[in-house]
């Protein structure tokens, strides 16, 4: 018997996501992921002053706003023909690195842990499925304690971000040329002290807690694989004096098992099943498709970015795999482990970069805007590869394209394949359709940010099979 399960909202993510699956004989046979909100940031950018993009695109996302300030600054630097000094890059990457820490800690403890751990039942916030948590009492209690302890540490990561960036979320420190206000010796030592506390928590608690959970949920190593194609445009790489601290721009093809150099020219977007009209497949600079909710066969307004025609996975597991740091496997649990390990890795990178920062060093100029230009900014962010593409005409923005990490991981289907998370959910065995806890575990392993993947759905039209609820 075929049963349809709809989960909406998929909570404990940033933004609004729906999952529709069909379960046949206990196994998922159809899967669709759908973004549940639309604001239209790309259209919003048209006609604005180019520098405003650095501030306004941050408002796409409250948990990963720094990523957008970096993406838009890189696009502007490309358009303005500005070569960032190494000092500019060091401090910018430090600010951005702090966002990785804030985000990974909150995603693990506040968003993921309640999927695996029995949270204190006296709080209505924590009541959920019954009997799906398996940890022994002692291990469970320790992780619950760390859930609350982690709040001070993720807060500290934002504090470190704000030390150089003014405030968080939505910073004022990332700008064309690198950063706005130089570091001082006092701030550098403050930062080192904060970073030490964050490091201790990640190493002593977060990573061990992740492995504890993995031991009690071994089946998650066999679930949620997805297409197995991994992509990174290069993370904390290619510094003049330091070389590459993390990942080179590489792509792993899961079918051929071959790794090749990342080539931005191979990025295309497809809107076959998305609520847009216009050219069906296009390169980022080519066209901004127009919204169309009435389009037949479409089911989400997340578009379908493809690399060389492939649906790919981006994010911590892709980066650690490509850098050679972690190659245990590709699964929901490997993804969760990779995120915690990456938090530790990023602490080390920030520490290295802090040692390079020259205090009181000014990088700002009166930047001159060309009347017409275009620029692209690609950067590895918390959740994976982010791209901003911008055109300037008559001194204002005339075109803006954004492809977010969650647009890659939560992409719509195209004519050839399902989106990445859809593939990850396919074939999953659901033990209890009334409490389909496996689905949320797989979905959250990607750390979806639907505020970023931004888009709409037209719900309530396509349910053809039997409703579980």
């Amino acid at each position, binding site marked *: 018997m075929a049963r349809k399960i709809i989960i909406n*909202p998929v909570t404990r993510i940033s933004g609004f996501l729906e999952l529709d699956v069909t379960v046949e004989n206990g196994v998922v046979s159809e899967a669709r992921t759908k973004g549940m909100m*639309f604001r*239209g940031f790309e259209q919003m950018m048209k006609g*604005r002053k180019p520098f405003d993009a650095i501030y306004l695109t941050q408002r796409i996302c409250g*948990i990963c706003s720094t990523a957008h300030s970096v993406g838009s600054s890189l696009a502007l630097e490309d358009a303005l023909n500005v070569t960032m000094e190494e000092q500019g890059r060091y401090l910018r990457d430090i600010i951005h690195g702090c966002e990785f820490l804030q985000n990974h800690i909150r995603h693990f403890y506040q968003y993921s842990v309640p999927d695996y751990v029995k949270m204190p039942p006296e709080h209505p916030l924590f009541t959920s499925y019954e009997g799906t948590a398996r940890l022994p009492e002692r291990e469970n209690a320790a992780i619950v304690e760390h859930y609350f302890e982690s709040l001070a540490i993720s*807060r500290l990561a934002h504090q470190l971000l704000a030390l150089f960036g003014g405030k968080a*979320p939505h910073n004022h420190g990332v700008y064309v040329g690198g950063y706005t206000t130089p570091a001082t010796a006092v701030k550098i030592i403050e930062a080192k002290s904060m970073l030490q506390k964050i490091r201790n928590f990640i190493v002593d608690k977060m990573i061990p807690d992740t492995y504890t959970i993995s031991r009690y949920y071994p089946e998650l190593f066999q679930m949620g694989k997805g297409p197995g194609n991994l992509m990174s445009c290069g993370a904390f790489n290619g510094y003049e004096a330091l070389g590459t601290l993390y990942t080179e721009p590489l792509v792993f093809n899961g079918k051929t098992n071959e790794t090749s150099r990342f080539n931005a020219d191979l990025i295309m977007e497809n809107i076959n099943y998305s609520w847009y009209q216009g050219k069906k497949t296009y390169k980022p600079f080519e066209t901004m498709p127009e919204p169309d909710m009435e389009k037949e066969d479409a089911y989400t307004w997340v578009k379908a970015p493809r690399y060389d025609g492939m649906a790919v996975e981006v994010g911590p597991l892709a980066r650690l795999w490509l850098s050679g740091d972690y190659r245990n496997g590709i699964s929901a649990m490997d993804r969760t482990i990779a995120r915690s390990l990456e938090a530790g890795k990023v602490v080390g990178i920030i520490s290295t970069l802090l040692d390079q920062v020259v205090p009181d060093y000014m990088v700002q100029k009166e930047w001159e805007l060309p009347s017409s230009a275009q620029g692209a900014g690609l950067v590895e962010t918390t959740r994976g590869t982010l791209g901003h593409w911008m055109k300037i005409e008559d001194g204002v923005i005339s075109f803006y394209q954004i492809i977010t990490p969650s647009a890659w991981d939560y992409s719509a289907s195209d004519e050839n394949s399902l989106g990445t998370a859809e593939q990850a959910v396919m074939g999953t065995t659901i033990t209890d359709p009334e409490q389909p806890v496996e689905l949320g575990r797989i979905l959250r392993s990607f750390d979806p940010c639907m505020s970023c993947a931004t888009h709409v759905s037209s719900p309530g039209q396509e349910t053809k099979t039997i409703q579980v609820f």
Partner: protein
Amino acid sequence: MSEHPVLPPESTDNESVAARLAREAKRQVAQGNLKKKKLVYLELNGCSGNIISLLNGSNPDFEYMITSMVDLLYSNSLMAAEGEQAVQRLFDLAAGDEEFILAVEGAVALKNNGMYHLVGKIGDRPVTGLEMAELLGKKATHVISVGACSVDGGPSAARPNLSQSVGLQGVLDRHIIKLPGCPVNPDWFLGTLAHLLMFGEPKLDDMNRPLMFYSTLIHDRCPRRPFFDQGIFAEKLGEPYCLFKVGCRGPVTRTDCPTRKWNDHVNWPIGASTCIGCAQFGFPDRMAPFISYDTTKE
């Protein structure tokens, strides 16, 4: 030692008053004088950055808030429940007799009768943010608009506003406490909540903003003010002088940012760059452009 030692006079600056309010709230709840009220934290069309900012609160922090101040019933970002199980709670609450406070972040998307933003589904019936805002908004004892999008549309309603987003007041004909900011400073929300729990509504200005946080222009307490008074202006970002001529919105924005600062008081926007007026009505469209190099050049 005397039973009533003589203490130094209490400080009356905004930060100290807010800290005392929060401490007093804790004490009253602990003694059982205050019953824990229910709080629904509804995320609508926005970036969910205000709940992230709320997690940055330190005293009280999030743990204290849910343990000793309120029973948090609903938060899309943080609740363990998912799907219909989660949304059903909101309908049960709306149908019941229990009192609750409603905090809303994000704008209300009006396009296609609210279909541009869904809170969830019951069965396969879509539940729009618009429906929930109206349903719970009518019923709550107090309603707080948290952040720019909820206050007056904010970035979600920036032109051309394809989702036809409006602030909460646009769909709710009732008194709403407004906490502008993009995002809101955690103290602004938690201090307002503490005041509501202990003493009822805080004093508001004629735009319904609590005076304890929003009474004074940033410009009037800016540490760079002496440079303004002497006519010493930065020509580019990163210089330590008055940023007025590169587009700073401190002269039109009312918050306590210069004294309270952000993220455990380590820094604030003008400590890094300009103020972009994120807590001013009409942000972002009426505050743009944020950075200019030519505001007063001839």
